[in-house]
């Protein structure tokens, strides 16, 4: 049998494939290639410049003592002395209140929309409404919040000021903040629910369980990473917002005196500042001109954002979607142009 001898030995003269020679492209294409590189490098440069700039300024101006000192009161240059403890506390308080209100609301509405969704008109209205809410500028939401909380019944959420109840307090601010976190939590939960494999629901229904029980004990635990990612994204949006804070939390750098004697409630009814409003008031556009404090506070704020981003990345690491949950929606938009017919019989998406 010819050819049944030992396998031939591999050669020594091996060639690796060359890179596609751009020089062989027509001129116009080479120009666009160059433009792409330019834009890309430009984006890199801008991003890195911002990061490095804030890093340098932050390290220059942030002393650990600032983190646990309260802003000094009473002096004219109030914001120049003292530390940033109050703003940090304020940020945490506002974020906590906002998330506590937004999360149940967002998750609940998402579950209703995906699992029940009747009447259809209401479901579509809620869907469009939340999408519209996501696009409303936060300053307009703040205007609405001010109006809302200065009406008679709702003044209990804030402390009376000299000119009567102003509607400014941590509670009020947190409540409006929940409106900007709501669309993110809603969208993430909804995407998670829509991507749950049908066999999970079918198994639960086959056991005779209701939709409510299924959602509570099967579906929501299954999509915990999505819900968590959406919540963290919402928190990120809250801690970065300045407009709502300025309108609904007053301009004091410190937490004001608690009103009344209830332990937590009284603090929430008071006013104060957050890192964002602190930065604004210490910048040249605010009253103070203590840009060192502004840089220090910015650095702390950026670290928080970085931390939240890292959490979201860890949470979505194993999922197909990017952190914004836009991945599957994008894919479905691109996929609309893929062949509708697939000979193997599956839905026509590559």
């Amino acid at each position, binding site marked *: 049998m010819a*050819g049944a001898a030992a396998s*031939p030995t591999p050669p020594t003269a091996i060639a690796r*494939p*060359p890179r596609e020679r751009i020089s062989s492209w027509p001129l116009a294409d080479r120009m666009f290639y160059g433009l792409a590189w330019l834009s890309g490098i430009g984006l890199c440069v801008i991003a890195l410049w911002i990061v490095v700039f804030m890093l340098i300024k932050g390290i220059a101006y942030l002393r650990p003592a600032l983190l646990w000192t309260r802003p000094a009161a009473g002096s004219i240059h109030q914001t120049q002395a003292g530390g940033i403890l109050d703003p940090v506390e304020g940020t945490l308080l506002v974020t906590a209140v906002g998330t506590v209100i937004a999360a149940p609301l967002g998750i609940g509405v998402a579950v209703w929309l995906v699992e029940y969704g009747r009447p259809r008109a209401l479901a579509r209205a809620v869907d469009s409404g939340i999408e519209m809410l996501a696009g409303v500028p936060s300053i307009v939401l703040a205007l609405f919040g001010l109006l809302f909380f200065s009406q008679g019944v709702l003044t209990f959420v804030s402390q009376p000021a000299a000119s009567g109840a102003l509607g400014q307090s941590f509670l009020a601010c947190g409540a409006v903040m929940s409106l900007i976190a709501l669309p993110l939590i809603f969208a993430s939960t909804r995407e998670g629910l829509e991507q749950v494999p049908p066999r999970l629901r079918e198994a639960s229904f086959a056991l005779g369980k209701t939709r409510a029980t299924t959602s509570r004990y099967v579906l929501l635990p299954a999509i915990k990473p999505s819900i968590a990612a959406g919540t963290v994204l919402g928190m990120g949006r809250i801690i970065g917002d300045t407009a709502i804070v300025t309108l609904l939390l007053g301009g004091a750098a410190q937490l004001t005196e608690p009103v009344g004697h209830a332990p937590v409630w009284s603090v929430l009814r008071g006013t104060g500042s957050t890192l964002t409003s602190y930065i604004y008031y210490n910048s040249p556009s605010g009253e103070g001109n203590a840009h060192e404090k502004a840089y220090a506070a910015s650095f702390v704020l950026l670290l928080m954002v970085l931390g939240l981003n890292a959490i979201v990345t860890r949470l979505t690491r194993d999922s197909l979607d990017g952190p914004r949950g836009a991945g599957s929606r994008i894919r479905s938009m691109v996929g609309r142009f893929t062949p*509708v017919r697939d000979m*193997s019989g599956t839905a026509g998406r590559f």
Partner: protein
Amino acid sequence: MDPLMPPPIRRIVLDREPTVAPPREPPSGANGSASAGAALAQRIARQPVANTRERMSIEGVWLAYGDNWVVRDVSLPVRQGEVLALIGASGSGKTTLLRSLNRLTEITPGAARAGRIALDGTDIHELEVNYLRRRVSMVFQQPNPFPMSIYDNVAYSLAEQNPERGRRRRRRSPELGQAVEDALRRAGLLDEVAGDLDRSALRLSGGQQQRLCIARALAAKPQVLLLDEPCSALDPISTATIEELIISLRESVAVVIVTHNLQQAFRVADHVAFMHLGELVEYGPSEQVFDRPREQRTRDYVSGAFG
């Protein structure tokens, strides 16, 4: 009626014989149908081609992905006027060899090669890669028409070749229209789509899409046409149409087809190359390889002992 209680069980009573669909009349002039009881297909009848000329020569080619040699020392001629079928089990390297003919293996990082592949005497690695790929066109396993009209799909490679001319002029120029028509005619699709070439290509059926891909590949008038299991995703009638198309094309284009379907190789091929684990085990005219194989491995594969 309580929605939670299961419905009452009904006994299934068979009171008549199940209906069996009678065999359909085969389409007139079909010559690929396997009659009941026959084990093998029949070769599609064809006009013999007078002059075959060698278009590509594969000389001592080795191909590797990373450290793994996938193709080992293969030498083959590719001739215009005949259909060359590469057969073999999965992992035999036939698809990799096919893709190396138009340097598509370069897209994969970590690919390495040795040996020489020549198109009309010139080493393909000295040619500019996009020029080569217009001379050696490829059709893939899954039909992949672009999300454009039929006309734009077929005109695609021609339109992108002449960037000097203005785009609108280029798109509707008479030469381009003629080229598109010729390609569609050669692919046997013109009659079916001539009415509306601006229709989206994605609305065609699977078989039509694959013929569109063949038309698209033929538009630039290539010397060699590479087909990577073109019918594996198609139904038998589309398969038969495309196989006849391949036979008719072989006069003007050298055709190389990779297939894991032995019956298809038998129906379509003039020469057959059997590869196993990267090595070329046997090469010869299709009747010889299928009926009187020289190698034991070939005999085993052709008779279905493995693969």
